[in-house]
């Protein structure tokens, strides 16, 4: 009941967080990686001494490979981003970098592949969202009073937007500090968060639905409030186990999935937060709006 009594506070907190995130995104911008823009990424590591970055830049400039972005990687390596280069150019790049350099990885993506990835990402996003709306509307179709079933779907969408916005906002901040870019795993993380956070929200709604059916409590507010009390331990326990697993990934897992795991952790955390502190208050708000 505590949550419902203070529902205004919690909704406002969520709203502030979302606004901050949107601000971060607009202000720092999200950088698209080569997966989407096309281009080449070469990661090299030196065995004995790593040359100065300025020297590397000069060497590459002399090869006229166009624009480049070089970043140090660890203590002995560099990551070199250029426009898409073909095999011969890659070979000459490697030889120009010296025999001491070993190529740890090389990725070259054509612009058409990148554009296609953008399309696919947007389509997947829409499909997952639609799939989830329909699933919720369908599974809650019998609960039409006091709040109609499609409103549950609507609230789920609002919480989803909240759940995604905040991690993406955090990513934007990360991006402006470390220069992290959006890659395919980022999109996968977002889509996965969609699926996972909804499942948490559903458990809460599920309980509310059951309590409405049983008709134990007098008012709708009480029903929602008591339902929350009954499920919040479960919600937190469940998310905790997934977050424990994800944290293990962040700290001990492969470097290629670190950012991925961080995004998922944030998404999971806010997913649970929104199921408890956002979805139910909104439900009560909607019902109160109906009366007027």
């Amino acid at each position, binding site marked *: 009941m505590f949550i419902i009594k203070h529902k205004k506070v919690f909704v406002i907190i969520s709203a502030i967080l979302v606004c901050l995130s949107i601000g971060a995104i607009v202000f720092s911008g999200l950088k698209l990686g080569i997966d989407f823009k096309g281009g080449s990424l070469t990661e090299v590591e030196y065995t004995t001494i790593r040359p100065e970055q300025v020297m590397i830049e000069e060497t590459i400039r002399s090869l006229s490979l166009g624009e480049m972005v070089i970043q140090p990687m660890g203590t002995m390596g560099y990551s070199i981003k250029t426009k898409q280069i073909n095999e011969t150019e890659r070979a000459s790049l490697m030889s120009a970098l010296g025999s001491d350099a070993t190529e740890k990885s090389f990725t070259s993506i054509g612009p058409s*592949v990148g554009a296609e990835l953008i399309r696919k990402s947007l389509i*997947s996003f829409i499909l997952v969202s639609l799939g989830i709306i329909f699933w919720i509307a369908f599974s809650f179709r019998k609960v039409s009073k006091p709040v109609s079933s499609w409103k549950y779907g609507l609230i789920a969408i609002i919480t989803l937007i909240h759940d995604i916005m905040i991690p993406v906002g955090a990513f934007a901040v990360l991006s402006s500090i470390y220069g992290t870019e959006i890659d395919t795993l980022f999109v996968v993380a977002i889509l996965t968060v969609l*699926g996972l956070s909804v499942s948490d929200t559903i458990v809460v709604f599920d309980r509310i639905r059951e309590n409405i059916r049983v008709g134990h409590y007098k008012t709708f507010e009480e029903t929602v409030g008591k339902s929350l009390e009954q499920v919040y331990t479960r919600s937190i326990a469940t998310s905790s186990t997934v977050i*424990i697993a994800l944290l293990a*990934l962040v700290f001990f897992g*492969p*470097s290629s*999935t670190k950012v991925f795991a961080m995004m998922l952790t944030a998404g999971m955390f806010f997913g649970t937060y929104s199921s408890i502190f956002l979805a139910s208050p909104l439900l009560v708000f909607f019902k109160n709006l109906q009366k007027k």
Partner: protein
Amino acid sequence: MWKTRITALLVLLLGIGLGFFVYQSEISYRNLAPEAKATGMAKFPFKLGLDLSGGTHLVYKADVSQVASADLKNSMDALRDVIERRVNVFGVSEPIVQVQNGGFSNQGEERLIVDLPGVTDVSRAVEMIGQTPMLDFRTENPNKDQTQEATVGADGVIKLNMNPQYILTDLTGRYLDKAILDFDQTTGEPMVSLQFDEEGSLLFEKITKENIGKSVAIFLDGQPISIPTVNEAITGGKAQISGNFTPEEARLLVGRLNSGALPVPISLISTQTIGPSLGAQATSNGVKAAIIGFLAIALFLIIWYRLPGVIATVALSMYVLIMLSIFKLVPVTLTAAGIAGFIISIGIAVDANVLIFERIKEELRKGNDSILDSIHHGFKRAWLSVRDSNISSIITALILFWFGTSLIKGFALVFLIGVIVSMVSAISITRLFLYTLNIKKKNKLTGFLFGSGFSNASTQVIK
């Protein structure tokens, strides 16, 4: 009661069996001599994706502007065969050459995807693959009766070098207009009909005139694919190759000839190389994270849920073993993202158990039923929640599977299998073990054992 206990025992034994299988298959595989063939358990190692094994991923675009849409599938299949043969020359273990058809997601482009695990000499790989298929016609070498060289390969097979037997002529695939699958009018045998263009027809006429009674070899990519004997001089550029083809062989030959005749030019649009050291590091880190994650979760479960937590940990271990065995048997290609998906699914597997326990706790708190009944009701009520909440994850996994490159498909598949197996294992295995315990008395001890967190299951919460 005994039936339950025996079933539980069998399930435990199954778990141990699976554990042994997972362990032994990895060990046997590592102990294989380099050239030896895998038998028994060694046939089931974990299949690692490129980002874990190191290797090269190439995406080619096929220029099919010259190909009629009816021929499209055949041309792409023939292209795939040729490239696969070239790749096999490298001795790459388990290369993957796939056609990705033009479609809604591809903007209508026909693509060829080549995955070469363990190959890091990208330049050489790209060079050899990049050539368009070469078709040429050769005549018998007048010096063919010289002594031939036979070499014995490492596997004891004798190889005869046929190539010096034939010499090149001017007639190559450039001059072939079309090859068609045909059937002999009288015998109904499958044959391949060739049609040369003008220049080719003249060349062909000359070659056949000069080689009546001798054989003319058709070479594709430097390997003879057919060596028919010339019966007569052929004018008009039409020829038929017959001779003991099955319809399948003939169809294949037609495809190959057409791909040599109308080479489908391919251009490289995307490359990804991952060095083996990077791959090995990713693998070891992934395994480390998985183990730590599992232990942390087990600890949490036992401390928070006590007795049911212990049971859940056992069920979780079974879950992990079942998943690992599925990965080996299907096989599922593991990528770095896939390992991430596996670790996440361990967390989700617990979810179903948590839902069930919380329900059981509630039933116990209501105070009226025996423990067995509480467990029973808890499971029934929780199943709907479990099902509903996991369906959204399944929807996501399915769409991710459609969306992704091979690296992402790995994640989606692991995630999907994980969610499904987790539902099944929680509902069946956990329930089985809980029933087996057959705890009847309700006292302070069971209250503690079945409670969770900071409260007991025997205390009634006054609201």
